[in-house]
């Protein structure tokens, strides 16, 4: 017995868990149905002075979606974002250093950064570093940092919206009508709530997990203006920037995307029901830090479309 799954199953402390007796069942159900004060939860998104505004956004959540004024506001903000999208000059041998500051909303004690290095050309593998950034006062030991990479470069993988390579993004049309047609075609069957929701999800993936160039971002924003049901659910200040939270009603939609219209770029996303939030910062660097390369494990994974995983593609790993 030398694999952890077999070992754990053999040592399962609840292998013979009994069913509830009628009395136990009745007691738990009665307690559940008895009205009580909902527990107060402490929320925490570490974006300085914007915390109060953020809480409002969570409170509004998906319930605030809808309405012609919210859709009209979405149109205005997306127009502004499309106009303002610009990129700094870059070279193919450089990397985008993307820092994703994650807060999974567990009493402010589930925070981490994932920093990844995306080859601008897409011809070099991507490198990932994840580290625990929860406050020192949180209970438990912080999680160890870890770094990993993949054996193939993004451009060597199959085309995918969820893991979009620079080559895939470069192949997409910039003409808004053609891009819209492509998105609706690829969204077919990808979301149970329909293709409008599917398009929202695909654009969110491309903005989040890739580094689309300014012309493509502008085209994405123009397409989103044409998707029925997309609304601005909230606007707030984040690090001195006024940003807008976009959502669409649908059971597939677990996250809303946050866009900075002045920069014409994605700021991050936040959960619709969960308190999960991620904010992104991107900058160009000439190389991957040596300590990241030295510490990285090579995960034997590549993008695939196996049954049971996201239809937009996801990593499929051996082992």
């Amino acid at each position: 017995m030398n694999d952890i799954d077999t070992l754990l199953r053999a040592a399962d402390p609840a292998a013979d868990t009994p069913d509830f007796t009628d009395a136990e069942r009745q007691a738990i159900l009665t307690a559940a149905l008895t009205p009580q004060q909902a527990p107060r939860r402490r929320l925490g998104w570490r974006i300085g002075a914007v915390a109060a505004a953020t809480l409002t956004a969570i409170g509004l959540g998906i319930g605030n979606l809808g309405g012609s004024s919210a859709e009209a506001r979405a149109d205005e903000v997306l127009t502004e974002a499309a106009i303002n999208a610009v990129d700094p000059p870059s070279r193919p041998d450089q990397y985008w250093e993307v820092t994703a500051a994650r807060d999974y909303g567990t009493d402010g004690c589930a925070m981490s950064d994932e920093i990844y290095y995306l080859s601008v050309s897409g011809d070099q593998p991507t490198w990932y570093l994840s580290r625990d950034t929860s406050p020192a006062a949180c209970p438990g030991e912080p999680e160890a940092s870890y770094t990993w990479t993949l054996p193939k470069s993004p451009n060597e993988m199959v085309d995918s919206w969820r893991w979009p390579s620079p080559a895939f993004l470069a192949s997409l049309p910039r003409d808004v009508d053609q891009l819209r047609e492509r998105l609706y075609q690829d969204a077919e069957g990808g979301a149970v709530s329909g293709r409008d929701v599917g398009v929202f999800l695909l654009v969110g993936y491309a903005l989040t997990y890739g580094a689309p160039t300014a012309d493509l971002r502008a085209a994405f924003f123009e397409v989103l203006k044409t998707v029925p049901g997309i609304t601005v659910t909230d606007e707030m200040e984040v690090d001195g920037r006024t940003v807008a939270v976009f959502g669409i009603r649908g059971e597939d939609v677990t996250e809303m995307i946050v866009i900075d219209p002045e920069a014409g770029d994605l700021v991050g996303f936040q959960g619709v029901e969960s308190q999960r939030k991620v904010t992104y910062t991107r900058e160009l660097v000439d190389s991957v830090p040596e300590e990241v390369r030295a510490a990285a494990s090579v995960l034997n994974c590549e993008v695939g479309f196996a049954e049971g995983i996201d239809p937009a593609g996801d990593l499929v790993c051996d082992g």
Partner: protein
Amino acid sequence: MRALPPPQDQEWLEALFDLNATKVRAYAIRRVGHDSADDIVSEVFATAWRRRHDVPEPALAWLLRTAHHAVAHERRSLARRLGVRDAVAGTLTDTSSPGADASGRALAESVLAQLAPTDAEILRLTAWEQLTPAEIAVVLDLSDSAARTRLMRARQRAKRLLDEPPAPSRAAAVPQLQGEPS
């Protein structure tokens, strides 16, 4: 899997309970032991009733996520009461069962203790709750791809640890496994 009635009445909660309660109880026993497990179950179904319009179907992963938060709260409360940081890691909670393989459990715990807490929990959810990476992502509030890659990484690390020759401290914990071929 049979469909639940609409989430508006007691019948829905009863059906939800009958479909999932034993699995939630097993989850709780594994994390907090037999004595506190039903408190966690009670909290989970009370939360499900309060948020009945948010509970998806199938509901198990959502219920286990709620249990995960309830267990974390229980452990933090215990840590505060005792002033012992280790309680958070669950080391004060005896979840052993007469039927469990004690030596295997000690070895498994020694391996899990050397992993990041989230990675260890991913392995437990895979082996014990038999969840898919997508379900684990719901329970732990991770992205699907993060759950998938972390599962693979955790398995790789666990295998390396299990394949290593036993260190003195580990050998002492699992004497009957010394010399077992890796």
